[in-house]
């Protein structure tokens, strides 16, 4: 034995069933803990946004600059991509060949990139309306919170490409399996954060 065999409760990660699950367990568990730490960052940015949403300093107010239609489209894109990354993981578990996994990951990546494009378009529109981050405390908080989520989506997309390359290079070895699983966790996490952004930022911004 040279490499510790990796395994996780939910997904078959190794060839046989007789090794202790400890290594894969701690790998996935550690990533969960990391996500919780990341969630604290988002929680604080949400709290901060809540305290300064009215500090518009005479500049644009939330209802002036948020387009709900666009936010809805972004939501649908991201939610669909969460489904497709889930299908990629299931394909890895039950099919085990490269083609379906890569195909579902490709769809996920395309949806993610479409989300990013739409979000950038939103930002450009806001800038054109004079809603840029240096204008007020409210816009500073908005442009710290929402683009940070966007940066996470970007990181996830790059990660998707890296995983695709590794699947092509190594097939489904233990590390590829565990990292695909982590990637899907990350992607679902971004979904959860986006739902919070949609509710706290976009929908609340249009409340009377």
């Amino acid at each position, binding site marked *: 034995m040279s490499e510790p065999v990796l395994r996780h409760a939910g997904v078959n990660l190794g060839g046989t069933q007789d090794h202790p699950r400890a290594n894969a367990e701690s790998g996935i568990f550690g990533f969960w803990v990391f996500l919780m730490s990341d969630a604290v960052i988002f929680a604080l940015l949400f709290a901060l946004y809540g305290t300064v949403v009215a500090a518009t300093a005479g500049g644009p107010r939330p209802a002036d600059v948020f387009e709900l239609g666009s936010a809805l489209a972004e939501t649908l894109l991201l939610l669909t991509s969460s489904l497709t990354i889930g299908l990629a993981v299931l394909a890895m578990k039950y099919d085990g060949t490269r083609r379906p996994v890569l195909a579902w990951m490709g769809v996920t990546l395309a949806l993610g990139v479409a989300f990013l494009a739409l979000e950038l378009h939103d930002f450009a529109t806001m800038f054109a309306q004079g809603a840029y981050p240096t204008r007020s405390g409210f816009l500073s908080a908005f442009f710290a919170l929402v683009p940070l989520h966007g940066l996470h989506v970007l990181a996830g997309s790059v990660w998707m490409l890296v995983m695709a390359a590794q699947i092509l*290079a190594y097939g489904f070895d233990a590390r590829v399996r565990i990292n695909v699983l982590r990637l899907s966790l990350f992607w679902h996490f971004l979904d959860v954060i986006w739902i919070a952004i949609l509710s706290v930022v976009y929908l609340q911004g249009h409340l009377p």
Partner: protein
Amino acid sequence: MQTAHPPIWPDVLGRFAWHDLPFVRAWQNPTINELIGAGAGALVIVGAVVTIALLTRYRLWGRLWSDWLTSLDHKKIGIMYVVIALVMLSRAVVEAVLMRMQQATAVGDPGFLSSDHFAQLFSTHGSIMVFFMAMPFLTGVINYVVPLQIGARDMAFPWANAIALSLTGGGAALMMTSLVVGQFSTGGWSGYPPYTGLAFSPDVGPDYWIWAVTMGSIGSTLGGINIACTIFKLRAPGMTYMRMPMFCWTSLCTSILMIFAMPPLTVATALLALDRYLGFHFFTNDLGGNMMNYANLFWLFGHPEVYILILPAFGIYSEVVSTFSSKELYGYASLVWATMAIAVLSFTVWVHHFFTMGQSANINAVFGIATMTIGVPTGVKIYDWIWTMFRGEVRFSVPMLYALAFMVTFVIGGFTGIILAIPPLDYVFHNTLFLVAHFHNMLIPGLLYGLLAGYTYWFPKAFGFRLNERWGRIAFTCWVAGFYLAFMPLYVLGASGMARRTNEIFEPDFRPWLYVACVGALVVLGALVSLIVQLVVSIRERDETRVFAGDPWDGRSLEWSTASPPPEYNFAVIPRIDARDAFYDGKRDDGYYRRDARYDDISVPKNSVTAIAIGAAATAASFGLVWHMWWLAVAAGLGIVAVIILRSFVRGAHRVIPSAEVTRIEHRWHDALAAATPIPRHCELTASNQGLAEIPA
């Protein structure tokens, strides 16, 4: 202010001007103040040059690189953390002495340090002591000890462990760089805006602070995740949670606090950076900024941080008191509950850092009561240690002396802590030297004594020989005497209304107390020197104090059941645990040590260049950001991403230690065990102690 001095090559060197070198400033304006600055910068350069020369002279570069810098072994990473901590401790103690000397000489007089220089001193002193002394010290000790105590071969994520170390080291390097190029922040260790915002501090100082602290903070988050996962997932079979050594419990609580409390700091510094670099309005005075948000974010980190610092020391005291009383730890369950209670409560008290910010009396009262509540589990812990000594056989060796000094001194800090927790009294003592005395009274006995006790206690485990006892006692005496002399006067001065961070004093009645405090600071400096002498003397006489057999103190937990120093793989056979003090009881029941004819292959992580490359790139990126060398920041940032991606393609990151090698190492140790003479407890400080404990009949 470098704004008055034109940058010499903005495209490449950003906003660097010749005037940013302390040597140039001292040449142009040779006052004592500037000469001290230039001297400190020169010391950093000379130190670096001498280190490089010595490494080259003794051809140690190869060993340094392959045995240490690229190693993923948790024991080596732990030791490197502690080395960083001790280097930074030396700098911060010298800064403390300079500050006390300035105050003693500045009664009705400007003193010898400029106001700006004094402000940099208290800012670096605080930032270093918290982020680059205390944090690396405790992380290092946890790193070294916890896997050994739970019967594991390494941390859960050895590579992330090395990255955390390199980020912390990079932050410390950035702190040192600020002595040589430019200047540090004058905004204190808490960096409160709007003072640290662009409008009031346009220089590089706050940027040094932001990036050094951010690197330390991210490193600590990674470290916390790693420690928690290690304890949750890698315990030896049979080691249930309630069978873990107390140090593991406190490390677990500390790591959970790190996971949840470091992100608020990262957010606070990142938003301050957005304010400073991109003109955002989080904490500015204008356009809807609100510095109260910073205070809340910072102390959402800052208060749990206090317990991040103190809990591991509580764990060390538990181990030390129990071992040096030859007795089971009293009230294990109540200590566990008290630790958990402290960890949870630590998130509920942050407002007590700004009772004076104008919120309602009811809010203040609620947070005041929550704060006092933490006193209960803390008091319980101290009694648990007292009852551990009760009906024991107490040996007054250096770690135990630290533990006793801690109990008696810490309770004074608790006393004044309750006073500061009461809002009406905090209105009077807040921001005065009373507060300074209080938190030093918590952190010096509560944290530093604990870590020094741990250093003395586990040193023979890590290096195979004991530290010199006599110099240890001298250092101990100086630490304790120096502490009382330096900080008791500050309580008096604070109660007399003297504000903290003052470089000039206009009240002659304060003079005698400032003198006493200055003498105390010099005694503390003596303590630091004694520690260095102790290390040198101990290394020289190491052949008489070797404890290769591994158990010099009749230890209780698993780390003492290995050789000193332990082999790379820690345990040739993962132990099975059936009781809390498995090793202590095992020694008494059936001899514990078992020699097998042959051992299995063991897989350990290979060395990796990538971790230190990430740390170096992060340091370069931070330096680039500080000086507005955008090309450097971008290149180094992309470098980090590239290294992470490349590393993810690496396969075969483990190396196998073959059975024959393991067998040879284990048999050598068992031969030494068989040859060693078991010694009774009253001989443990003599040369006869080879690391094998005599079991009384």
